[in-house]
């Protein structure tokens, strides 16, 4: 595989009025699948729009295949985009929609190209229904088909798995990996951590418009698992339980709140899970509830940004 960067982003900042959507972001991408991970509002869609030339950076430079993408129709022959928005040309059939893309790309046989692309995403090219009658999953696959109909070198997909059932997700994930293996640069955005794990090994993590982490997925996953966790334990003897928990090596600190709550900080959530019940037994305390307070993706990203 070539190591030449296909996408180069250098100190890119984009603001809309007073709102900074992405700030000082730099990265390069080569061939293969890269996941762009981040919570909603992190700046993922803005980043993808910058890469496709749908908007210009306020500062910094974006280069795709060596060219600036904004107002560069010649480059659009080499880029395919699955946008996030729902709207499509609703009265068209899926085949007509993809054929339109093929025609505008100047392909010699738009109909055949459309049928081929629809076949790749497992849709029936002879389905005459308008796309407004399609299920969410079918619509997503039509959007993928129009993005790959012209066999682009760069494929950019904005949350393409949203609304799909597990079988459809698996199929599209395999398709993205295949596109990457065939020598394309594929960038897929998602806000679902477990989903990203299946795309491939390279990940860019965005949070609050900044690059929170970048690199191999497994390294980042490890980093996420190693971060401090906070767990709330509800018990009838909070002081005794807190004392017992503090003897565990996995516990960094414990704080009693009110008559029933102990908030525990740990660097090893798994070890804490194993330590809670013995500690409760030792303290002769009843456990009513054990709840992680920061296990959501947002807090993971906050940690990565604040690291």
């Amino acid at each position, binding site marked *: 595989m070539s190591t030449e960067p296909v996408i180069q982003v250098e100190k890119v900042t984009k603001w809309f009025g007073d709102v900074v959507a992405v700030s000082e972001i730099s990265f390069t991408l080569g061939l293969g699948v890269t996941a762009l991970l981040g919570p909603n509002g992190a700046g993922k869609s803005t980043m993808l*729009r910058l890469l*496709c*030339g*749908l*908007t*210009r950076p306020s500062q910094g430079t974006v280069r795709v295949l060596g060219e600036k993408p904004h*107002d560069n*129709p*010649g480059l*659009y*022959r080499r*880029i395919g*985009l699955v*946008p996030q*928005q*729902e*709207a*499509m*040309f609703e*009265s068209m059939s899926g085949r007509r*929609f993809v054929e*339109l*893309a093929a*025609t*505008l*790309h*100047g392909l010699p046989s738009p109909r055949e190209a459309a049928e081929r692309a629809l076949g790749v995403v497992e849709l029936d090219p002879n389905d005459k229904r308008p796309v407004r009658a399609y299920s969410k999953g079918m619509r997503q696959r039509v959007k993928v088909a*129009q993005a790959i109909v012209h066999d682009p070198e760069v494929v950019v997909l904005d949350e393409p798995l949203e609304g799909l059932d597990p079988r459809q997700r698996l199929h599209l994930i395999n398709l993205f990996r295949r596109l990457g293996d065939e020598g394309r640069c594929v960038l897929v955005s998602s806000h679902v951590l477990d989903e990203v794990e299946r795309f491939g090994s390279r990940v860019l993590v965005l949070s609050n418009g900044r690059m929170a982490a970048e690199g191999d997925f497994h390294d980042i996953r490890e980093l996420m698992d190693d971060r401090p966790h906070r767990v709330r334990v509800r018990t009838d003897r909070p002081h005794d339980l807190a004392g017992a928990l503090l003897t565990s090596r996995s516990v960094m600190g414990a704080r009693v709140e009110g008559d029933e709550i102990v908030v525990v900080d740990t660097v090893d959530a798994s070890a804490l899970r194993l330590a809670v019940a013995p500690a409760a037994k030792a303290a002769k305390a009843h456990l009513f509830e054990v709840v992680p307070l920061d296990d959501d993706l947002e807090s993971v990203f906050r940690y990565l940004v604040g690291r």
Partner: protein
Amino acid sequence: MSTLYRLFLSNLASRGRVVGLLALGMLAVVVGWAIGMSDTADPLDDGTTMVANLGLALIAPVVTLVLSSAVLGDPNEDGTLVYLWLRPVARWQLATAATAAALTVALPIVVVPLAIAAALTGGGGELVTGTMAACAIAVVGYGGLFTWLGLRIKRAMPWGLAYILVWEGFIARAGDGTEALSIRSHTVSVLSRLADGPRSMWESTMSTGVLVPVLAGLVAIYFTSRRLQLQDVA
């Protein structure tokens, strides 16, 4: 470009929209018929006034506004413009195809009812010819202008209506300087000259009356192309 043209055409020509706009044209037909049936009306004078005040001041700009502001404005607002924008297509082709599609739908909706209305007044063949020519020129001028407006600003309808009422209907009639910048004034001149009807206070020559609105439409297509080059796409 023909693919884009057909796409815009099919997006615009929904049955509800066309019927609604035709109903506006029918208003002119009813008024034309009433003038024709009246014993006291002067068919040529009253017919020309009706076409100028109802057709060229209201029906032509409003119908063209509804259609032209939607042709790129709707895909821009609902996000489908990206499926046209992110293709190796020159921006002037997008702008021209969109404007042409809007004109294709607007022209018959404006010209046919008003020509029928002019005929029903009994003002003669010259009034009908003048009506058709003036309306067609008005649609071309407004078509380019409102296509640009639909792309340039969200909720283009109220702004377009404000332009029609305030600029075309009020400010542009304040004096020779402003009338020369009014599509309506030029098309009324064309109507008056061709129909040989009553002359307005301000009149352009025949060639100016034709050229200025058409030129305005062409310049607006250029600005629409520029806008497509420069703007952000959702």
